[in-house]
């Protein structure tokens, strides 16, 4: 069990948890999204600033456990400079990875691979998914309405 525990709380995860990326608020929020995990009360809100069709800046504010905070931080880290479509694809990979549908994930996803250890703790998968699901919901809303509106989502329903 201690091995499994160490596998989930890898150094990379704890590093993201202790100093999460994306703390700085964005100048203009083109996409705004909120999410929560009803079973544990974790809450997240994020704002994305776009420029030339790419993510110029992202702010992720997650009030939750080490896994949800680290996962949100990884999302913030990888987002900058990517297009929304690229990020949708990455989010889908993360979802598949956490559901155990794929083992190998592209090397360019970097730190995200460290979330693999969460799979051994089924109740914690929701924590790792929260930021990605919230991001996807925000993007969906943005695309549907052109102009973003605040959306609310929960991993329990969307998983």
């Amino acid at each position: 069990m201690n091995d499994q525990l160490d596998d989930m709380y890898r150094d990379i995860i704890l590093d993201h948890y202790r100093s999460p990326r994306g703390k700085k608020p964005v100048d203009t929020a083109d996409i705004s999204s909120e999410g929560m995990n009803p079973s544990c009360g974790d809450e997240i809100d994020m704002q994305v600033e776009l420029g030339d069709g790419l993510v110029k800046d992202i702010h992720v504010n997650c009030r939750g456990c080490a896994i949800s905070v680290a996962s949100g931080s990884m999302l913030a880290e990888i987002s900058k400079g990517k297009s929304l479509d690229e990020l949708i694809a990455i989010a889908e990979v993360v979802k598949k990875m956490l559901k155990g549908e794929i083992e190998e994930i592209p090397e360019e996803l970097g730190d995200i691979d460290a979330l693999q250890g969460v799979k051994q703790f089924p109740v914690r998968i929701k924590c790792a998914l929260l930021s990605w699901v919230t991001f996807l919901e925000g993007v969906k809303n943005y695309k549907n309405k052109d102009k973003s509106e605040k959306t609310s989502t929960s991993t329990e329903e969307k998983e």
Partner: protein
Amino acid sequence: MSNPTSDKKERPKSSDSSNILNVEKIKNDFPILKQKVYGKKLVYLDNAASTQKPQMVIDAITEFYEKSNSNIHRGLHSLATKATESYENTRKHVARFIGGVDSDEIVFTRGTTEAINLVMYSWGETNISEGDEIVITEMEHHANFVPWVILAKKKNATIKKIPITLCGHLDLSNIDNIITEKTKLVAVSHMSNVLGTINPIKILAEKAHTQGALILADGAQAAPHMKVDVKDLDVDFYTFSSHKMCGPTGVGVLFGRRNILEAMPPFNLGGEMIRQVSFDKITWNEIPDKFEAGTPNIADVVAFDTALNYLELIGIDKIRQHEIGLTGYAIEKLSEIDGLEIQGPREPEQRGSAISFTDKDIHPHDIGTFLDSKGIAIRAGHHCAQPLMRILGKVATARASLYIYNDEADIDALVKAIKEMRSYFGV
């Protein structure tokens, strides 16, 4: 003049609590506690969520299916008589257990949640109208919160809340402006599942009755841990669950005063709850059958009788004394850990054994997972009390909750693991 030394209020010494019950012997009654989790001795501290079952309760379920299984009330054969007798025997036992009420005043439900919903749908729908007020508290479990909020919305009634003090007690300083002549119902937890606080039900019952209102006490956390006398408390409704007191899941109890239950319409409609049915006219059965439509959870109700026997064998007052000692010990030891904040009253005499805590650096979920890796089962989350979490300024808490098979060694294991956890996460 009293002896000054005897006036000194001392917290029970750590060794006192372990002598009240023979915990080693009790632990032995629970087969599940013998297992190891991740190679470590299981330390079960999630009793406010559900307690474990002693062998005699597990055997009672098997025995029912082996020897008495049949539907109740209707059959004329021997098995049906046996099953009916056993089922009704539990009802009588429950009536005695909560202070000697009439067994007709005991309704079996699926659990506390369903018992409160029964009152909401049956009594609430009939008796709450526009402008009425329903009084709840800030520390209610969602089961005693959501039904009343939804009913109030539907009826254009108002919800009023009794606030809590900083130390986790109900703040009664403004109570006469909260419970007023507009109040129709006061719905309050007897013991908080998050703070552990034991609420002053008798005082609230008197306030409610003075204003012509009824009072419902949610006893899900209280009934397993302390003597409950609904007549002394003077409540109109009292609810609790079997599975939090060594009994099977799927059995709840609603106590209601006879005259109130008799005036209430049925909850579910179907078999058993009727007296006469024709195309033109349907008449309801007497209480409590009126509220028990369909085939109930017979085997588990029957086994609940054994659970009550088991608790009485140990002694409810002894259980309470044991928990006061152990809760005091736990609070004392947990308080010594840097960065840990304990919720609810500090004095074990004023509270039950559910101890919620937070770590200033580590999220309750991480606490829960880490402790599990050490074989320690606690609960982490909002404990179905989101409004209270907001008031406490927390998204969640970790909660250790104790029972008859817990001892100081379990608390020591918890404290040791929390200290290890803090170094594991590097805080």
